[in-house]
Protein backbone atom coordinates (compact mmCIF):
# COMPACT_ATOMS: atom_id res chain seq x y z
CA UNK A 1 0.00 0.00 0.00
CA UNK A 2 1.33 3.40 -0.99
CA UNK A 3 0.23 5.94 1.57
CA UNK A 4 1.78 8.82 -0.40
CA UNK A 5 -1.31 8.52 -2.61
CA UNK A 6 -3.37 9.89 0.25
CA UNK A 7 -1.56 13.25 0.49
CA UNK A 8 -3.19 16.54 -0.43
CA UNK A 9 -2.31 18.39 -3.61
CA UNK A 10 -1.72 17.38 -7.23
CA UNK A 11 0.04 14.08 -6.63
CA UNK A 12 -2.21 12.72 -3.89
CA UNK A 13 -5.89 11.98 -3.69
CA UNK A 14 -6.33 13.33 -0.16
CA UNK A 15 -8.05 16.54 -1.22
CA UNK A 16 -10.43 14.68 -3.54
CA UNK A 17 -11.38 12.36 -0.71
CA UNK A 18 -11.96 15.28 1.64
CA UNK A 19 -14.13 17.03 -0.94
CA UNK A 20 -16.12 13.83 -1.22
CA UNK A 21 -16.38 13.74 2.56
CA UNK A 22 -17.88 17.25 2.58
CA UNK A 23 -20.53 16.11 0.09
CA UNK A 24 -21.23 13.01 2.17
CA UNK A 25 -21.63 14.98 5.41
CA UNK A 26 -23.81 17.63 3.72
CA UNK A 27 -26.00 14.90 2.23
CA UNK A 28 -26.24 13.11 5.57
CA UNK A 29 -27.11 16.26 7.56
CA UNK A 30 -29.78 17.44 5.11
CA UNK A 31 -31.31 13.95 4.84
CA UNK A 32 -31.31 13.65 8.62
CA UNK A 33 -33.09 17.01 9.05
CA UNK A 34 -35.65 16.06 6.40
CA UNK A 35 -36.01 12.77 8.25
CA UNK A 36 -36.71 14.52 11.56
CA UNK A 37 -39.45 16.60 9.96
CA UNK A 38 -40.96 13.51 8.33
CA UNK A 39 -40.51 11.68 11.62
CA UNK A 40 -42.49 14.29 13.55
CA UNK A 41 -45.27 14.22 10.97
CA UNK A 42 -45.20 10.42 10.86
CA UNK A 43 -45.22 10.03 14.64
CA UNK A 44 -48.17 12.37 15.14
CA UNK A 45 -49.82 10.65 12.18
CA UNK A 46 -49.43 7.25 13.82
CA UNK A 47 -51.01 8.57 17.01
CA UNK A 48 -53.74 10.45 15.18
CA UNK A 49 -57.37 9.78 15.95
CA UNK A 50 -58.20 9.59 12.26
CA UNK A 51 -57.96 6.09 10.82
CA UNK A 52 -56.92 7.19 7.34
CA UNK A 53 -53.99 9.24 8.61
CA UNK A 54 -52.92 6.41 10.90
CA UNK A 55 -52.95 3.90 8.05
CA UNK A 56 -51.00 6.30 5.82
CA UNK A 57 -48.26 6.74 8.44
CA UNK A 58 -48.23 3.01 9.14
CA UNK A 59 -47.91 2.26 5.42
CA UNK A 60 -45.04 4.73 5.03
CA UNK A 61 -42.87 3.15 7.74
CA UNK A 62 -43.77 -0.42 6.78
CA UNK A 63 -42.88 0.05 3.11
CA UNK A 64 -39.70 2.09 3.62
CA UNK A 65 -38.41 -0.24 6.33
CA UNK A 66 -39.60 -3.32 4.47
CA UNK A 67 -37.55 -2.92 1.30
CA UNK A 68 -33.77 -2.64 0.90
CA UNK A 69 -32.46 0.92 0.91
CA UNK A 70 -30.76 0.28 -2.42
CA UNK A 71 -34.11 -0.59 -4.02
CA UNK A 72 -35.69 2.52 -2.48
CA UNK A 73 -32.85 4.62 -3.91
CA UNK A 74 -33.39 3.11 -7.38
CA UNK A 75 -37.14 3.75 -7.27
CA UNK A 76 -36.63 7.38 -6.23
CA UNK A 77 -33.89 8.03 -8.78
CA UNK A 78 -35.75 6.52 -11.71
CA UNK A 79 -39.27 7.50 -10.76
CA UNK A 80 -39.32 10.77 -8.83
CA UNK A 81 -38.81 13.17 -11.72
CA UNK A 82 -41.57 11.53 -13.74
CA UNK A 83 -43.86 11.45 -10.71
CA UNK A 84 -43.35 15.15 -9.99
CA UNK A 85 -43.72 15.86 -13.71
CA UNK A 86 -47.10 14.17 -13.97
CA UNK A 87 -48.23 15.78 -10.71
CA UNK A 88 -47.36 19.20 -12.15
CA UNK A 89 -49.09 18.25 -15.39
CA UNK A 90 -52.32 18.22 -13.44
CA UNK A 91 -51.74 21.88 -12.60
CA UNK A 92 -51.09 22.73 -16.22
CA UNK A 93 -47.27 22.88 -16.08
CA UNK A 94 -45.88 20.88 -18.97
CA UNK A 95 -42.12 21.59 -18.76
CA UNK A 96 -39.46 19.03 -17.86
CA UNK A 97 -38.58 18.46 -14.23
CA UNK A 98 -34.89 17.97 -13.53
CA UNK A 99 -33.41 17.12 -10.15
CA UNK A 100 -29.68 16.61 -9.59
CA UNK A 101 -28.22 13.55 -7.86
CA UNK A 102 -27.65 15.43 -4.62
CA UNK A 103 -31.28 16.57 -4.31
CA UNK A 104 -32.62 13.12 -5.14
CA UNK A 105 -30.16 11.65 -2.68
CA UNK A 106 -31.46 13.92 0.08
CA UNK A 107 -35.03 12.91 -0.75
CA UNK A 108 -34.27 9.16 -0.89
CA UNK A 109 -32.15 9.02 2.27
CA UNK A 110 -34.46 11.53 3.97
CA UNK A 111 -37.44 9.24 3.35
CA UNK A 112 -35.49 6.36 4.85
CA UNK A 113 -34.28 8.39 7.82
CA UNK A 114 -37.83 9.67 8.33
CA UNK A 115 -39.25 6.18 8.67
CA UNK A 116 -36.79 5.32 11.44
CA UNK A 117 -37.24 8.74 13.08
CA UNK A 118 -40.99 8.15 13.09
CA UNK A 119 -40.51 5.05 15.23
CA UNK A 120 -38.08 6.83 17.56
CA UNK A 121 -40.33 9.87 18.03
CA UNK A 122 -43.50 7.82 18.33
CA UNK A 123 -41.95 5.76 21.08
CA UNK A 124 -40.91 8.90 22.93
CA UNK A 125 -44.32 10.57 22.53
CA UNK A 126 -46.01 7.54 24.05
CA UNK A 127 -43.51 7.57 26.92
CA UNK A 128 -44.31 11.15 27.97
CA UNK A 129 -46.27 10.92 31.23
CA UNK A 130 -49.85 12.09 30.74
CA UNK A 131 -49.67 13.96 34.04
CA UNK A 132 -47.16 16.40 32.58
CA UNK A 133 -49.54 17.42 29.81
CA UNK A 134 -52.48 17.52 32.23
CA UNK A 135 -50.56 19.76 34.61
CA UNK A 136 -49.66 22.13 31.77
CA UNK A 137 -53.28 22.23 30.68
CA UNK A 138 -54.36 22.91 34.25
CA UNK A 139 -52.10 25.96 34.18
CA UNK A 140 -54.10 27.17 31.21
CA UNK A 141 -51.36 26.75 28.59
CA UNK A 142 -52.60 26.70 25.00
CA UNK A 143 -51.66 23.59 22.94
CA UNK A 144 -48.78 25.29 21.13
CA UNK A 145 -47.19 26.45 24.35
CA UNK A 146 -47.59 22.99 25.82
CA UNK A 147 -45.78 21.53 22.81
CA UNK A 148 -42.92 24.03 23.06
CA UNK A 149 -42.46 24.02 26.83
CA UNK A 150 -43.46 20.50 27.89
CA UNK A 151 -43.72 18.01 25.03
CA UNK A 152 -40.65 19.02 22.99
CA UNK A 153 -38.08 19.07 25.82
CA UNK A 154 -39.35 15.74 27.17
CA UNK A 155 -39.48 14.33 23.66
CA UNK A 156 -35.86 15.27 23.00
CA UNK A 157 -34.76 13.74 26.28
CA UNK A 158 -36.46 10.41 25.63
CA UNK A 159 -35.91 10.17 21.87
CA UNK A 160 -32.30 11.36 21.64
CA UNK A 161 -30.62 7.97 22.13
CA UNK A 162 -32.68 6.40 19.33
CA UNK A 163 -32.36 9.50 17.16
CA UNK A 164 -28.59 9.15 17.59
CA UNK A 165 -28.85 5.64 16.15
CA UNK A 166 -30.94 6.97 13.27
CA UNK A 167 -28.19 9.51 12.54
CA UNK A 168 -25.53 6.77 12.37
CA UNK A 169 -27.72 4.77 10.02
CA UNK A 170 -28.41 7.83 7.85
CA UNK A 171 -24.71 8.68 7.59
CA UNK A 172 -23.78 5.16 6.51
CA UNK A 173 -26.62 4.82 4.02
CA UNK A 174 -25.62 7.97 2.15
CA UNK A 175 -22.86 5.82 0.63
CA UNK A 176 -25.54 4.14 -1.51
CA UNK A 177 -26.06 7.36 -3.45
CA UNK A 178 -22.58 6.89 -4.93
CA UNK A 179 -24.08 4.03 -6.95
CA UNK A 180 -26.18 6.68 -8.72
CA UNK A 181 -23.08 8.71 -9.58
CA UNK A 182 -22.99 11.35 -6.85
CA UNK A 183 -19.32 12.21 -6.22
CA UNK A 184 -19.40 11.61 -2.49
CA UNK A 185 -16.65 10.05 -0.38
CA UNK A 186 -17.48 6.55 -1.61
CA UNK A 187 -17.41 7.56 -5.29
CA UNK A 188 -14.12 9.44 -4.92
CA UNK A 189 -12.56 6.41 -3.27
CA UNK A 190 -13.82 4.24 -6.14
CA UNK A 191 -12.39 6.58 -8.80
CA UNK A 192 -9.09 6.98 -6.97
CA UNK A 193 -8.79 3.23 -6.45
CA UNK A 194 -9.44 2.57 -10.11
CA UNK A 195 -6.94 5.05 -11.49
CA UNK A 196 -4.12 4.18 -9.09
CA UNK A 197 -4.83 0.43 -9.03
CA UNK A 198 -4.77 0.58 -5.27
CA UNK A 199 -8.47 0.12 -4.41
CA UNK A 200 -7.82 -1.34 -0.96
CA UNK A 201 -5.84 1.72 0.12
CA UNK A 202 -8.63 4.08 -0.85
CA UNK A 203 -11.57 2.05 0.39
CA UNK A 204 -9.77 1.65 3.71
CA UNK A 205 -9.15 5.41 3.82
CA UNK A 206 -12.83 6.04 3.05
CA UNK A 207 -13.90 3.53 5.71
CA UNK A 208 -11.72 5.25 8.30
CA UNK A 209 -13.11 8.67 7.34
CA UNK A 210 -16.66 7.36 7.83
CA UNK A 211 -15.54 5.92 11.15
CA UNK A 212 -14.08 9.25 12.30
CA UNK A 213 -17.23 11.19 11.37
CA UNK A 214 -19.34 8.58 13.13
CA UNK A 215 -17.17 8.70 16.28
CA UNK A 216 -17.12 12.51 16.43
CA UNK A 217 -20.86 12.87 15.91
CA UNK A 218 -21.50 10.14 18.45
CA UNK A 219 -19.75 12.35 20.99
CA UNK A 220 -21.95 15.30 20.01
CA UNK A 221 -25.05 13.21 20.62
CA UNK A 222 -23.69 12.17 24.02
CA UNK A 223 -23.20 15.84 24.94
CA UNK A 224 -26.71 16.70 23.75
CA UNK A 225 -28.15 13.78 25.66
CA UNK A 226 -26.52 14.97 28.87
CA UNK A 227 -27.74 18.51 28.27
CA UNK A 228 -31.35 17.48 27.76
CA UNK A 229 -31.27 15.18 30.78
CA UNK A 230 -30.12 17.87 33.21
CA UNK A 231 -33.35 17.65 35.14
CA UNK A 232 -33.21 13.90 35.64
CA UNK A 233 -32.04 12.58 38.98
CA UNK A 234 -29.44 9.90 38.54
CA UNK A 235 -29.03 7.04 40.94
Amino acid at each position, binding site marked *: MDFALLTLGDTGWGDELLRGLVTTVALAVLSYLLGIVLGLIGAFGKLSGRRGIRLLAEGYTTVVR*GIPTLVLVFIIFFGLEAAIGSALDAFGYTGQVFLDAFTMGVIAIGLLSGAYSTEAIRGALVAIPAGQIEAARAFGMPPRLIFRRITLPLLLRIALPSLGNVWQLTLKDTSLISVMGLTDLMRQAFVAGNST*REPFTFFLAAALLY*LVVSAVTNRLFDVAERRFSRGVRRA
Partner: protein
Amino acid sequence: MDVTVILDAIPLLIEQGLRLTLELLFLSLAVGLVFAVLIALMRLSGIPGVAHAAYAFVYFFRSTPLLVQFFLIYYGLGQFRPELQAVGLWQFFREPFWCAITALTFNTAAYTSEMIRGGIQSVPHGQIEAARACGMSRVTVFRRIVLPLAIRQALPAYSNEVVLMLHATALASTITLMEMTGLAGRIASRTFDPVSAYVAVGLIYLVITLLLTRGLKWIEWKSTAYLRPRDG
Protein backbone atom coordinates in the same frame (compact mmCIF):
# COMPACT_ATOMS: atom_id res chain seq x y z
CA MET B 1 -44.82 2.56 -14.01
CA ASP B 2 -46.62 -0.28 -15.74
CA VAL B 3 -48.63 -2.93 -13.92
CA THR B 4 -48.11 -5.57 -16.62
CA VAL B 5 -44.33 -5.17 -16.39
CA ILE B 6 -44.55 -5.58 -12.61
CA LEU B 7 -46.70 -8.68 -12.92
CA ASP B 8 -44.34 -10.18 -15.51
CA ALA B 9 -41.27 -9.37 -13.43
CA ILE B 10 -42.41 -10.87 -10.13
CA PRO B 11 -42.41 -14.57 -11.14
CA LEU B 12 -39.16 -14.10 -13.04
CA LEU B 13 -37.48 -12.53 -10.00
CA ILE B 14 -38.70 -15.28 -7.72
CA GLU B 15 -37.67 -18.07 -10.07
CA GLN B 16 -34.22 -16.80 -10.92
CA GLY B 17 -33.16 -14.54 -8.08
CA LEU B 18 -34.82 -15.59 -4.84
CA ARG B 19 -32.62 -18.65 -4.38
CA LEU B 20 -29.38 -16.68 -4.45
CA THR B 21 -30.82 -14.00 -2.15
CA LEU B 22 -31.81 -16.64 0.41
CA GLU B 23 -28.47 -18.45 0.08
CA LEU B 24 -26.63 -15.22 0.80
CA LEU B 25 -28.95 -14.51 3.73
CA PHE B 26 -28.92 -17.84 5.51
CA LEU B 27 -25.31 -18.81 4.88
CA SER B 28 -24.01 -15.49 6.22
CA LEU B 29 -26.45 -15.55 9.14
CA ALA B 30 -25.35 -19.07 10.14
CA VAL B 31 -21.62 -18.45 9.91
CA GLY B 32 -22.07 -14.96 11.36
CA LEU B 33 -23.85 -16.35 14.42
CA VAL B 34 -20.94 -18.68 15.20
CA PHE B 35 -18.47 -15.80 14.83
CA ALA B 36 -20.72 -13.59 16.93
CA VAL B 37 -20.63 -15.98 19.89
CA LEU B 38 -16.84 -16.23 19.62
CA ILE B 39 -16.45 -12.44 19.42
CA ALA B 40 -18.78 -11.91 22.36
CA LEU B 41 -16.77 -14.41 24.42
CA MET B 42 -13.54 -12.67 23.37
CA ARG B 43 -14.92 -9.33 24.52
CA LEU B 44 -16.02 -10.77 27.84
CA SER B 45 -12.81 -12.76 28.32
CA GLY B 46 -11.07 -9.89 30.09
CA ILE B 47 -7.77 -10.81 28.42
CA PRO B 48 -6.43 -7.38 27.35
CA GLY B 49 -5.23 -8.06 23.78
CA VAL B 50 -8.08 -10.43 22.92
CA ALA B 51 -10.85 -8.22 24.29
CA HIS B 52 -9.45 -5.14 22.50
CA ALA B 53 -9.12 -6.94 19.18
CA ALA B 54 -12.76 -8.04 19.40
CA TYR B 55 -13.84 -4.51 20.29
CA ALA B 56 -11.90 -3.06 17.33
CA PHE B 57 -13.51 -5.58 14.96
CA VAL B 58 -16.99 -4.74 16.21
CA TYR B 59 -16.34 -1.00 16.15
CA PHE B 60 -14.99 -1.03 12.60
CA PHE B 61 -17.82 -3.05 11.11
CA ARG B 62 -20.52 -1.13 12.95
CA SER B 63 -19.31 2.37 12.08
CA THR B 64 -18.54 1.98 8.39
CA PRO B 65 -21.07 1.60 5.55
CA LEU B 66 -21.72 -1.94 4.39
CA LEU B 67 -21.05 -0.83 0.81
CA VAL B 68 -17.46 0.12 1.77
CA GLN B 69 -17.06 -3.32 3.33
CA PHE B 70 -18.29 -4.99 0.14
CA PHE B 71 -15.94 -2.95 -2.05
CA LEU B 72 -13.03 -3.33 0.36
CA ILE B 73 -13.27 -7.09 0.04
CA TYR B 74 -14.30 -7.48 -3.60
CA TYR B 75 -12.31 -4.73 -5.34
CA GLY B 76 -9.80 -4.02 -2.56
CA LEU B 77 -8.35 -7.47 -2.06
CA GLY B 78 -7.38 -7.61 -5.74
CA GLN B 79 -4.55 -5.31 -4.75
CA PHE B 80 -3.01 -8.20 -2.79
CA ARG B 81 -3.51 -10.81 -5.46
CA PRO B 82 0.09 -12.18 -5.45
CA GLU B 83 0.07 -12.51 -1.66
CA LEU B 84 -3.36 -14.14 -1.64
CA GLN B 85 -2.31 -16.51 -4.41
CA ALA B 86 0.75 -17.45 -2.36
CA VAL B 87 -1.44 -18.57 0.55
CA GLY B 88 -4.09 -20.09 -1.71
CA LEU B 89 -6.91 -17.73 -0.75
CA TRP B 90 -7.20 -16.06 -4.14
CA GLN B 91 -9.55 -18.77 -5.43
CA PHE B 92 -11.92 -17.79 -2.65
CA PHE B 93 -11.79 -14.01 -2.93
CA ARG B 94 -11.94 -14.08 -6.73
CA GLU B 95 -15.57 -15.15 -6.56
CA PRO B 96 -18.06 -12.33 -5.97
CA PHE B 97 -20.30 -14.81 -4.12
CA TRP B 98 -17.70 -15.55 -1.45
CA CYS B 99 -16.78 -11.87 -1.18
CA ALA B 100 -20.43 -11.06 -0.52
CA ILE B 101 -20.66 -13.87 2.02
CA THR B 102 -17.50 -12.62 3.75
CA ALA B 103 -18.75 -9.02 3.95
CA LEU B 104 -22.23 -10.01 5.13
CA THR B 105 -20.85 -12.51 7.65
CA PHE B 106 -18.40 -10.04 9.23
CA ASN B 107 -21.09 -7.37 9.33
CA THR B 108 -23.73 -9.48 11.03
CA ALA B 109 -21.13 -11.02 13.36
CA ALA B 110 -20.19 -7.54 14.60
CA TYR B 111 -23.79 -6.49 15.27
CA THR B 112 -24.92 -9.82 16.69
CA SER B 113 -21.94 -10.17 19.03
CA GLU B 114 -23.11 -7.02 20.80
CA MET B 115 -26.59 -8.50 21.25
CA ILE B 116 -25.16 -11.74 22.61
CA ARG B 117 -22.80 -9.86 24.91
CA GLY B 118 -25.76 -7.91 26.28
CA GLY B 119 -27.67 -11.18 26.64
CA ILE B 120 -24.84 -12.93 28.48
CA GLN B 121 -24.40 -9.98 30.83
CA SER B 122 -28.11 -10.00 31.62
CA VAL B 123 -28.06 -13.59 32.92
CA PRO B 124 -28.84 -13.37 36.67
CA HIS B 125 -25.91 -14.25 38.88
CA GLY B 126 -28.01 -16.62 40.96
CA GLN B 127 -28.63 -18.87 37.97
CA ILE B 128 -24.92 -19.37 37.43
CA GLU B 129 -24.31 -19.88 41.17
CA ALA B 130 -27.05 -22.49 41.29
CA ALA B 131 -25.56 -24.33 38.32
CA ARG B 132 -22.11 -24.24 39.90
CA ALA B 133 -23.62 -25.53 43.14
CA CYS B 134 -25.07 -28.46 41.21
CA GLY B 135 -21.52 -29.28 40.22
CA MET B 136 -21.66 -28.30 36.54
CA SER B 137 -18.36 -27.48 34.88
CA ARG B 138 -17.85 -24.02 33.40
CA VAL B 139 -18.47 -25.30 29.87
CA THR B 140 -21.66 -27.07 30.92
CA VAL B 141 -22.89 -23.96 32.73
CA PHE B 142 -22.30 -21.94 29.60
CA ARG B 143 -23.98 -24.46 27.32
CA ARG B 144 -26.96 -25.30 29.53
CA ILE B 145 -27.64 -22.10 31.45
CA VAL B 146 -25.93 -18.98 30.11
CA LEU B 147 -26.33 -19.45 26.36
CA PRO B 148 -30.05 -20.37 26.32
CA LEU B 149 -30.91 -17.45 28.60
CA ALA B 150 -28.69 -15.08 26.60
CA ILE B 151 -30.27 -16.16 23.32
CA ARG B 152 -33.76 -15.65 24.69
CA GLN B 153 -32.78 -12.16 25.84
CA ALA B 154 -31.18 -11.29 22.49
CA LEU B 155 -33.94 -12.73 20.30
CA PRO B 156 -36.08 -9.61 19.70
CA ALA B 157 -33.04 -7.60 18.62
CA TYR B 158 -31.84 -10.52 16.52
CA SER B 159 -35.16 -10.68 14.64
CA ASN B 160 -34.52 -7.12 13.57
CA GLU B 161 -31.01 -8.08 12.47
CA VAL B 162 -32.35 -10.88 10.27
CA VAL B 163 -34.58 -8.42 8.41
CA LEU B 164 -31.73 -5.92 8.05
CA MET B 165 -29.55 -8.71 6.66
CA LEU B 166 -32.20 -9.63 4.09
CA HIS B 167 -32.05 -6.03 2.91
CA ALA B 168 -28.26 -6.04 3.05
CA THR B 169 -28.07 -8.90 0.55
CA ALA B 170 -29.33 -6.41 -2.07
CA LEU B 171 -25.86 -4.83 -2.01
CA ALA B 172 -24.47 -8.00 -3.54
CA SER B 173 -25.86 -6.67 -6.82
CA THR B 174 -23.21 -3.92 -6.74
CA ILE B 175 -20.50 -6.58 -7.03
CA THR B 176 -22.10 -8.22 -10.08
CA LEU B 177 -24.15 -10.91 -8.32
CA MET B 178 -27.50 -11.67 -9.95
CA GLU B 179 -29.63 -11.99 -6.85
CA MET B 180 -33.07 -10.36 -6.88
CA THR B 181 -31.90 -6.74 -7.00
CA GLY B 182 -29.28 -7.49 -9.64
CA LEU B 183 -31.89 -9.30 -11.68
CA ALA B 184 -34.27 -6.36 -11.33
CA GLY B 185 -31.54 -4.18 -12.84
CA ARG B 186 -31.35 -6.52 -15.81
CA ILE B 187 -35.14 -6.46 -16.23
CA ALA B 188 -35.02 -2.66 -15.94
CA SER B 189 -32.62 -2.31 -18.86
CA ARG B 190 -34.50 -4.86 -20.96
CA THR B 191 -37.93 -3.30 -20.50
CA PHE B 192 -36.76 0.34 -20.30
CA ASP B 193 -38.99 0.60 -17.25
CA PRO B 194 -36.71 0.69 -14.20
CA VAL B 195 -39.43 1.94 -11.83
CA SER B 196 -41.66 -1.06 -12.48
CA ALA B 197 -38.76 -3.49 -12.17
CA TYR B 198 -37.67 -2.07 -8.83
CA VAL B 199 -41.23 -1.75 -7.52
CA ALA B 200 -41.69 -5.44 -8.37
CA VAL B 201 -38.56 -6.47 -6.50
CA GLY B 202 -39.48 -4.12 -3.63
CA LEU B 203 -42.85 -5.89 -3.28
CA ILE B 204 -41.12 -9.27 -3.02
CA TYR B 205 -38.73 -7.99 -0.35
CA LEU B 206 -41.70 -6.50 1.50
CA VAL B 207 -43.55 -9.82 1.54
CA ILE B 208 -40.45 -11.76 2.66
CA THR B 209 -39.85 -9.14 5.36
CA LEU B 210 -43.39 -9.52 6.69
CA LEU B 211 -43.14 -13.34 6.61
CA LEU B 212 -39.78 -13.31 8.39
CA THR B 213 -41.08 -10.90 11.04
CA ARG B 214 -44.12 -13.12 11.62
CA GLY B 215 -42.02 -16.27 11.87
CA LEU B 216 -39.54 -14.72 14.26
CA LYS B 217 -42.34 -13.33 16.45
CA TRP B 218 -43.69 -16.87 16.69
CA ILE B 219 -40.28 -18.23 17.75
CA GLU B 220 -39.99 -15.45 20.36
CA TRP B 221 -43.43 -16.34 21.67
CA LYS B 222 -42.57 -20.05 21.82
CA SER B 223 -39.28 -19.44 23.58
CA THR B 224 -40.92 -17.50 26.39
CA ALA B 225 -43.73 -20.02 26.91
CA TYR B 226 -42.45 -20.88 30.41
CA LEU B 227 -43.05 -17.28 31.50
CA ARG B 228 -46.77 -17.39 30.73
CA PRO B 229 -49.44 -18.88 32.94
CA ARG B 230 -50.66 -22.27 31.69
CA ASP B 231 -53.99 -22.02 30.00
CA GLY B 232 -57.04 -23.84 31.27
